[in-house]
């Protein structure tokens, strides 16, 4: 390091390497990625957003909603769930006895307690979840035994983790979810809940609009700032606006006035209602509660 040239070469090499690795590399690997298909289906994913949804995303960007909200669900693992749906020829008591007979299997040793808890005193109500474990082979083993005796069951794969338990999504977010996001705003602070699937939780546009106008009107403990500037407070003219918000009396404007959402507010609500990643993908499998296609 006696000469400037040495420093210069070292610096160029270091920055260049990381540039190749984290700018060029991802671009080559993901840049050409297009639409994928839903797991076990030919449906395309993701769907092209509508014009209003795209405009709404610009409102989201302009107002910095990402400063308080993330749009990325994390998952810590997967778990398999075996749920009985029909015992076939068995009665509940017969089945319990049969299940007990399986306890001797060495590979089930770890699960006998859980199994015993599940079937002890069970009166035959369906559906009945009897086994929940991240170990896929055990569940398959069990499934084969049940199949052999004609018992019907559901085998479901579920994503796990605090985000999933909070109801923020049914699986983790993956690269494919953001194909049409422009700009991609993953966010880095959760002052408010994750919004990657807010369209599933709150599909109602009116709910979204009222929440934006007065968050406390839908959740009295809310600390989200109201976005009243996205609405217009105006005198009711000869005919009241069909869009006017139906607010609870506490938040309603003075007599003779109405609160009308601006185009920005409507687009934003459309964008929020469109946020959903409900389908399983190859890289993020799970068994949907309501199948993607009936």
């Amino acid at each position, binding site marked *: *390091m006696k*000469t*400037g040239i040495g*420093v210069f070469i*070292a*610096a*160029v090499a*270091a*920055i260049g*390497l*990381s*540039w190749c*690795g*984290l*700018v060029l590399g*991802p*671009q080559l690997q*993901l*840049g050409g*990625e297009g639409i994928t298909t839903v797991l076990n289906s030919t449906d395309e994913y993701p769907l092209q957003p509508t014009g209003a949804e795209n405009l709404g995303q610009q409102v989201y*960007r*302009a*107002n*910095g*909603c*990402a*400063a*308080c909200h*993330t749009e*990325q669900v*994390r998952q*810590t693992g997967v778990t398999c769930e075996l749920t009985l749906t029909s015992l076939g020829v068995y009665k509940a008591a017969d089945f319990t006895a049969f299940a007990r007979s399986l306890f001797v299997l060495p590979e089930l040793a770890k699960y006998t307690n859980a199994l015993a808890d599940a079937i002890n005193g069970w009166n035959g109500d369906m559906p009945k979840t009897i086994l929940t474990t991240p170990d896929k082979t055990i569940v398959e083993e069990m499934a084969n035994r049940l199949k052999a005796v004609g018992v019907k069951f559901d085998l479901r794969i579920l994503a796990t983790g*605090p985000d999933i338990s*909070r109801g923020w999504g049914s699986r*983790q*977010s*993956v*690269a*494919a*979810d*953001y*194909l*049409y*996001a422009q*700009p*991609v705003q*993953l*966010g*880095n*602070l*959760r*002052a408010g809940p994750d919004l990657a699937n807010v369209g599933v939780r709150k599909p109602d546009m009116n709910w979204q609009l009222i929440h934006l106008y007065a*968050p406390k009107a839908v959740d009295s403990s*809310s*600390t*989200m*700032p*109201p*976005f009243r*500037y996205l609405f217009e407070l105006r005198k009711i003219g000869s005919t009241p606006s069909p869009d006017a918000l139906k607010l609870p009396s506490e938040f309603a404007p003075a007599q003779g006035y109405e609160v009308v959402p601006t185009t920005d507010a409507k687009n934003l609500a459309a964008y929020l209602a469109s946020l959903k990643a409900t389908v399983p993908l190859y890289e993020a499998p799970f068994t949907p509660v309501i199948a993607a296609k009936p």
Partner: protein
Amino acid sequence: MNPTVKTTFSVCTNEIDASCRVPLLALFGGAALWLVAGLALGIGAIMSFHKPDLFADCQFLTFGRSQAAANDLLLYGFCIPAALGVLLWIFSRLSQTPLALPIVPVVAANLWHLGVLIGTIAILTGNSTGHLWLEYPRPAAVLLFAAFLLTAVTAAATFGFRQQRDLFPAHWFLFAALLLFPWIYSTANLFLVSNQVPRGVVQAIIGWWFGNNLIFVWLALAGVGMAFYFLPKIAGKPLGNSGYAITGFLTLLFFGTWAGIPQGAPVPAWMPTLSSVMTALTLVPLIAIALVLWQTIVRNGFKCGGGPFCFIKFGMLCFIASTILYISLACPRYSRVLEFTWFGTAQTQLQLLGFFAMILFGAIYEILPRIMEAPLPFPKAAKAQFWITGLGILLFVVPLAVGGLEQGMKVRDAAVPFADASAVALKFLRVSTTGQLLILLGSLPLVLNLFVMTIRWKVALLKTLISAIKAPLPEAEVKA
């Protein structure tokens, strides 16, 4: 020592300092104003948490906008231009030659400040690009980029004319900083703010790469470079082992530039994995730099009493703390709890204010009396600034980090309602806002000293000018 040599040397130093005066005032003056504006706007932003409907009818100050504008003002408004000023001075001092092309950085400073102004207005009016740390739209970005290049050219030219051939550790760090910024800033803008942006999550990856290289690597290069110049200089003792310094420099560049991809990000798994390994490896530069500091600061036991040395020492301690927080954020075990909480904010603010801004305060107070050839007008206020800002930073950052930890543990436990987790953080925000107020208060002495000195200098200039006009013309000229 030969007395004649001494005098020529000091004449030369005066000349160097004088050559820096106008460019540095242009860079520091605007930077100091942006600092106050950024700190004030940051307090305005956080008020949305204390009183959610405060700005419900004012779109310009809504949290999402004011927060981004405030952070950018601290980084682009204050940290970078002020650091460029300090860098120019260090370069001409180390080269033992007056600043080359002194008019160029003056132009650059004005372009830069104009860019910051445009960028800030753009964010507040809803025209941010939506990418973290890259919020300024294209016109502002072009100005910043051009201004940076111009300054870098001046620095390189000054280096080229150097009288003193040795290369010091400060040189390596500052050189790399000059190279890194244009590279990452142009990459990020070309990829993310152009007409042909990549689709999907590649945007986020490039954004993380950029953010890490700016907030972690660039600030580290520039900040440590400045500290490695000033600490030995003020203490009058040599810098610690240069073998450690070079290890720190190279490993910071080779490992640090890969950090920044969060664990569990919705991207192919190799990226976060590689990134977290590299982040863990930044322990190497951290330890190397800490050893150099240990040898430079602790071993020689210099007493600073609130002066520039104190600022820089405090800054380097914050650097160590903030890097440790950064590494812990990348560690999969902790990141699961700390991710998406106020802990990240604490780390960033510690890096920006505790580390970088504090070093800049020290450097500016050290440089100002020399380039202005006058003592600081309010030296007591400058000392008070050290204590007020230092306390402010602790009050700002520690509650945020602890609050973030508690918030993270609550969010992780799905049995705890989400609102409870947010409410916990709110408690800590009350304290951290007090810290922000102190930091704002602490920044006023800098503005005061800087502007009183500038005004006095301008008045003196004006007086010389007037007396020159008024002075009776010499006999010879009257005749002619």
